[in-house]
């Protein structure tokens, strides 16, 4: 039982990182019907930027709260702008093009960001300092929980709640939802779809950058190809939850995090990846729109 609870705790920590990253996939897909394969690499870039900001600007004070907060603020602002820039450069010119052309453009962007990271920061791994968050640990009836895990879980839940309120209670949020349902109709209602797309890239990249910084703070190891693994997992999470559906991405991330640890812990570690995809394919066969996805009537 202790072991099981321990697995769940660890699964929730990684799951909330998946969830944050998955929201970026799902928002872009919802409005543009584009799988943004570069999103994982944007997340990796965020971790590198965060480390650089931390070491260059606050090298002496990495454990100070204000330094950590500033790292989060500067990095997330930069990455939000980078997301807007990426959309402008690689996706907007292709909005009327065949859908797969935009997918290839995304793959190209992914390759360029990944190798750009290698050129700037070098091919060796980079290591985050270990004292960014206070390193407290608690033993609760045999289960060990550390402060970083709690910080990640709490901050993720707060951010996701904020996003949920933003999407459902504000004008821009309503416009985003409307554009996801039917772009043409949204246009007719006077919604400027261009600004909506800029907004979702900024928001998605913002949440992704927080996810990237959590990876840096939690696992502390950065390498230039890390975006792929997190990107792929977050993308799976978005599909499990129902791609295009924001609460679905949150749920999917948490479920995938827990599923991953349970598979690796109780079924087979060597087949963990394959089994994750077996689950995904089964979900697609039974309910192609994911857990929370709504059935979209096919246009004729």
């Amino acid at each position, binding site marked *: 039982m202790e072991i099981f609870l321990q697995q769940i705790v660890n699964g929730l920590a990684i799951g909330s990182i998946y969830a944050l990253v998955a929201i970026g996939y799902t928002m872009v897909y919802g409005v543009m019907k584009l799988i943004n394969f570069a999103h994982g690499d944007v997340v990796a870039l965020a971790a590198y930027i965060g480390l650089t900001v931390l070491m260059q600007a606050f090298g002496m004070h990495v454990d100070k709260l204000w330094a950590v907060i500033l790292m989060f603020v500067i990095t997330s602002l930069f990455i939000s702008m980078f997301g807007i820039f990426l959309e402008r450069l690689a996706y907007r010119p292709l909005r009327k093009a065949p859908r797969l052309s935009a997918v290839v453009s995304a793959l190209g962007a992914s390759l360029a960001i990944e190798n750009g990271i290698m050129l700037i920061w*070098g*091919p*060796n*791994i980079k290591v985050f300092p*270990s004292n960014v968050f206070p390193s407290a*640990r608690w033993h609760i009836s045999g289960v*060990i929980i550390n402060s970083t895990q709690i910080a990640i879980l709490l901050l993720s839940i707060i951010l996701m709640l904020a996003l949920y309120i933003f999407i459902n209670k504000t004008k821009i949020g309503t416009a985003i939802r409307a554009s996801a349902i039917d772009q043409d109709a949204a246009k007719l209602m006077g919604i400027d779809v261009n600004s909506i797309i800029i907004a979702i890239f900024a928001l998605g990249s913002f949440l992704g950058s927080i996810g990237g910084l959590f990876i840096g703070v939690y*696992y502390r190891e950065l390498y230039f190809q890390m975006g792929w693994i997190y990107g792929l997992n977050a993308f799976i999470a978005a599909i499990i939850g129902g791609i295009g559906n924001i609460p679905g991405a949150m749920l999917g991330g948490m479920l995938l995090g827990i599923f991953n*640890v349970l598979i690796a812990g109780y079924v087979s*570690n060597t087949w963990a990846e394959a089994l994750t995809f077996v689950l995904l394919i089964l979900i697609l066969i039974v309910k192609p729109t994911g857990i929370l996805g709504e059935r979209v009537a096919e246009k004729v």
Partner: protein
Amino acid sequence: MKLKNLLWVVVSVLFLATSSFAAGVIKIGVQAPITGSFANEGQGIDNAVKMIVEQQNAKGGLLGKKIEVVTCDDEGTAVGGAICARKLVNDGVIAVIGTYSSTPAESAEPIYARAGVLQTSDATADSLTHHGYWTFFRNSCPNSAEANFTADFLVKDKHFKRIVVLSDYSVYSSNLADATVSAIKKLGGNIIYRGKIQAGSQNFTPILTKIKAMNPDVIYFSGYYTDGGLIRAQEVSLGIKAAFVGGDSNDNPEFFKLAGKAANGVYMINVPRPDILPYPLAKEFLKDYQAKYHMMPPSIWTLFNADGLRAIMYAIEKTKTTDTKKLAAFLHNLKNFPGITGPITFTKDGERAGSRFMAYEIYNNDQYKVVYKED
């Protein structure tokens, strides 16, 4: 068929000898993964070769000729290895340093052998020296040697009773782990779990939590420091009391950064470390490397390949020729040539002999002490 091969060799050797003579340079190839997952290791090999060649050229080169380096990126794949081999042969190199991993080294091997181009690689798959190619020289040690030493250390010296063996999926790491498992079994050791992790996945808590329930007294990991450092850190943060023993690729300064305080008490298996053993060559090499590239070499494998290059340069100097047949004959009889990674001796099948492994214990976060060696 044999005669034809021989003819090929003679022709190409003649061709190479004349072409490099005509050009007035000696060409040395580097086959290494400059991009892809092992980019850091590949760039390390390339850097080391370029630095040593630069130093040698400053001293007047070899046999009165300048040395020229030709690099080819094999991306760590079998396809890239074969393409690079053909390219480098065509560029007229007499010897190739690298490559880093076993798969591209093995796909390149027959091409170099047919063309009579020397190849020296750190790749550790035992099979590399079993094909009987006269052109191949391993500058590190095969998996089996390290496996036997590790088994001795775990079973005979430390008397561990409940052993967990972990590897990643790479050829190198999984072969080393498999060889270690069979060596341990031969000594009657008790392996309670043999698992694999996905390199770079960073989240190793699921498998470690599972291992925790098995109550092991040691975890041996045969993969790389990039994962090993995290495994150790997560092992300690999960409250697992087992000792941690790392294979040679864990032995890297970054391991200590990743593991932090958890590095204390870790055992590392490796060949003699350059910075704690009295090899002035090693200290000099590391100093020069750091001065030129402003970083440490990515791993011990860079140093092995540097030694491969140095042995070949030494052979050219001594035999006063670039005829690869004669160079190979010289290298096959090379004994105790002082190297960065210890004395270099090659056996008849191109295996590096006499390299002794040691087990180190880490204390004070990044200090070493030798706790076990074979004699």
